[in-house]
């Protein structure tokens, strides 16, 4: 790696002094993202304000062989923006302009630092919105959403980030600038944009992103039902899916999550409920009534012990406030927690939840469950106290058992948070060596020096900075 003074000299030529953070105190804020169990101090942070500064910084890093990590608001739950020792953080928050919003073509062209929710806000006057809605949508950036193919509560009907991006301009790790896709829904090339999304920053940095906007639903119906057990709530979901209804969202919270949300935002839930199910329908007003009736019948048949229906936008917002605050609210119950993001086939939800309860007992750690039930996307929150000897290790081991369970059931180790640092060890358990090798060949083709977000996704020693590049690295256990 290049000497630090050469790197710093190069960076000073790109950004003014006040936007180049070097001192320990200045760098401290960038040591972790939302996966707070890990912290690494970078060598420098560049607060970029233009695409040109990003491109020049990437080129400098490439020339010097210095690794870099793109970072938006740092809300990654998989450690996606964890710094690399000796590397540079390229902070993108200041690239926050919406460059174009065309209601006729229903697109928005944005810079990577634009906050997710701000796109919908800008589109609202035209009756449009940007569909992917991660729980962190008030702070997370589109660039980060691109990196990790972020989801949200409404993926069931509308899909994830990748389903809402038509094209993008990006700087590859080599410093080359590419333009993928376009502004049409149709294409005559392979879906390069689709490959870029969810690549966890391993190819480079998106600079301009063309998003697809959808009309805001005309009418919606949000219902919250309480159940005796989490399994009963899970079975209600299977029943609704099998009946052929296509709700916009179906979410479950278990007793611990309910307790946390009640304390944090004073949400009200049916008394005695061990689990709540939130179902939201969206449709044109003429068509909503029929779906509402069918959903009502299904919920009644599912043995719900209390049902609450939102009759106003305020009540609907209150239901979602409880759900979207659940992660942070659980933080009040425990000094630390790990969020998992496994996916299981929807028909196995009940079984998976029973297994998680057993694992929780076995490891002696509380696990709260908040999940996108309609997608089979689990979010167990494993509560632990990092100050207690061995408790973090136990929490990690429990998290690993849950991921193994998801793989065994034919699911995935991540639905929407990405592999990041956190689940590197599990990539080769979900995929065969030839699959991982193909991923790696693509990575090496895009970034021969492996400087872009090194240490994420792949459990390879070489990825962690050891040895020379060029050969196929051996897959090894993560550190």
């Amino acid at each position, binding site marked *: 790696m290049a000497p630090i003074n050469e790197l710093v000299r190069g960076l000073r030529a790109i950004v003014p002094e006040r936007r180049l953070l070097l001192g320990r105190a200045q760098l401290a804020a960038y040591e972790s993202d939302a996966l707070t169990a890990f912290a690494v101090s970078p060598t420098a942070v560049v607060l970029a304000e233009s695409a040109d500064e990003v491109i020049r910084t990437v080129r400098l890093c490439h020339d010097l062989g210095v690794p870099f990590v793109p970072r938006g608001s740092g809300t990654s739950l998989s450690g996606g923006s964890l710094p690399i020792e000796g590397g540079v953080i390229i902070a993108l928050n200041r690239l926050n302009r919406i460059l174009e919003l065309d*209601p*006729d073509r229903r697109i928005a062209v944005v810079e990577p630092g634009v906050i997710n929710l701000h796109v919908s806000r800008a589109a609202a006057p*035209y*009756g449009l919105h940007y569909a992917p809605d991660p729980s962190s949508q008030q702070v997370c950036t589109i660039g980060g959403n691109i990196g990790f*193919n972020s989801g949200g509560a409404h993926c069931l*009907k509308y*899909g*994830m980030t*990748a*389903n809402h991006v038509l094209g993008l301009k990006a700087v590859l790790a080599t410093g080359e600038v*590419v333009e*993928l896709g376009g502004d*049409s*829904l*149709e*294409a*005559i*090339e*392979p*879906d*390069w944009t*689709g*490959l870029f*999304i*969810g*690549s966890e920053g391993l190819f480079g940095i998106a600079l301009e992103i063309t998003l697809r906007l959808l*009309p805001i639903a*005309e009418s919606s119906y949000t219902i919250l039902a309480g159940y005796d057990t989490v399994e009963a709530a899970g079975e209600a979901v299977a029943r609704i899916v099998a009946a*052929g209804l*296509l709700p916009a969202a179906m979410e479950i919270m278990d007793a611990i999550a309910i307790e946390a949300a009640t304390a944090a935002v004073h949400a009200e839930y049916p008394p005695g409920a061990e689990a709540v199910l939130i179902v939201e329908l969206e*449709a*044109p007003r*003429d*068509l909503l*009534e*029929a779906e509402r009736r069918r959903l009502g019948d299904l919920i009644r048949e599912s043995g719900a012990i209390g049902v609450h229906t939102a009759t106003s936008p305020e009540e609907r917002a209150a239901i979602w406030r409880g759900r979207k605050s659940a992660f942070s609210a659980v933080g009040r119950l425990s000094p630390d927690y790990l969020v998992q*993001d496994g*996916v299981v*086939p*929807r*028909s196995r939800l009940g079984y998976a939840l029973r297994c998680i309860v057993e694992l929780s007992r076995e490891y002696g750690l509380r696990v709260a469950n908040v999940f996108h039930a309609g*997608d*089979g996307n689990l979010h167990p929150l494993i509560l632990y106290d990092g100050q207690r000897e061995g408790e973090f290790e136990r929490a990690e081991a429990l998290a690993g058992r849950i991921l193994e369970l998801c793989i065994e059931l034919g*699911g*995935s*180790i991540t*639905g*929407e*948070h990405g592999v990041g640092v956190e*689940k590197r060890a599990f990539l080769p358990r*979900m995929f065969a060596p*030839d699959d991982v*090798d*193909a991923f790696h060949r*693509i*990575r*090496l*083709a*895009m970034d021969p020096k492996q400087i872009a977000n090194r240490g994420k*996704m792949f459990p390879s020693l070489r990825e962690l900075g050891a040895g020379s590049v060029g050969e196929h690295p051996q897959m090894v256990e993560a550190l």
Partner: protein
Amino acid sequence: MTTISPDRIEDVVAAVREHTRVVAHGARSKAPLVAEEPGAAYIDTTRLTGVVEYDPGEFTFTALAGTPLSEIQALLAENGQHLPFDPPLARAGATLGGTVAAAMNGSGRLRFGGVRDFVIGVRFVDGTGKLVRGGGKVVKNAAGFDLPKLMVGSLGRLGVLVELSFKVFPAPPAWRTIRVKCAGVEDAVTVMAELGRRPFDLEALDLEPPGTLVLRVSGDEAMLDIHAARVGAATGRPFEVVAGAEEEGYWQGLRDFAWVPPDCWIVKVPLTLRRLPELERVLAAGDVARRYAVAGNVAWLAWPVDRPRTELDLAGLNGLIVRGPALDGSGPWIGPANIGAAVFARRVKDALDPDGRFPPLVPDVRAVSAAAS
């Protein structure tokens, strides 16, 4: 010309490894997309068929790449499910793999997305002869690179598809079509833009030039006429609502490209609403049979095979010849290559097909990127 027709995945792997030049194809329902490579081994996937996994309650299925679309659609229909992207050419024998490789979507892709948005898992043999899997069998999955999407539109140039997993949706209980008479193309574009922002959940929004819009809505039978009438009235133009066999027959005709005159190539041209009026002027002046689908996001042209293709180039179009007689080796692309993606394309091609076992990409990424740099 050697043609191999494997019926097992391991035989596809062996066939790729045994030959230095490989061209994969399915039922040839999109013959112009099958590269003409003298001396190459042709892998015909039409015997590689069968549904591997389908649990209706899960709303996903996995099938081998040569499985006919018609077989999949019949199976899904038995369970009240469907592929919302409305894939064309099922009755012409189109396979699942060909539909993915050619990125074929019908008019119905407007509401929930195209084949790219429904393919969740893929297995393919890459140019190094390795069997590679990407994605998975669950509806939500962010692990590893999104190879299923990469294979959409890859035209057999990055790998031979052998198995695909899809998510599916419940089929709507009923449909209606609304035909709206606009004053001309400019008026039609204005109405399309307006409809695009309205929360009507349109399943399709096509334009029969010059000025007839064709909309499709779905939902509960009892309320659907009211909904269709409201949507029609919202256009402020004369409209009629069509239901029943006539309604379904209209869209089936589109899936079959029944409007295309004989002896024509079918050319797919990606588009936006903004570019539509100018294109329509050129095509109308040139007397080209055509229609526009997906709210102005694609034009389908019928180009007589005896008419010089250079005229298409002159119109400044970017398109792909997807159907008609096989081509003579000149490649199915119309218009200039996308220089902006050339570096990215070359890097992906080098990673998955380093020895150039499969035909070159779009039209030749090496030449294009060399010219660009």
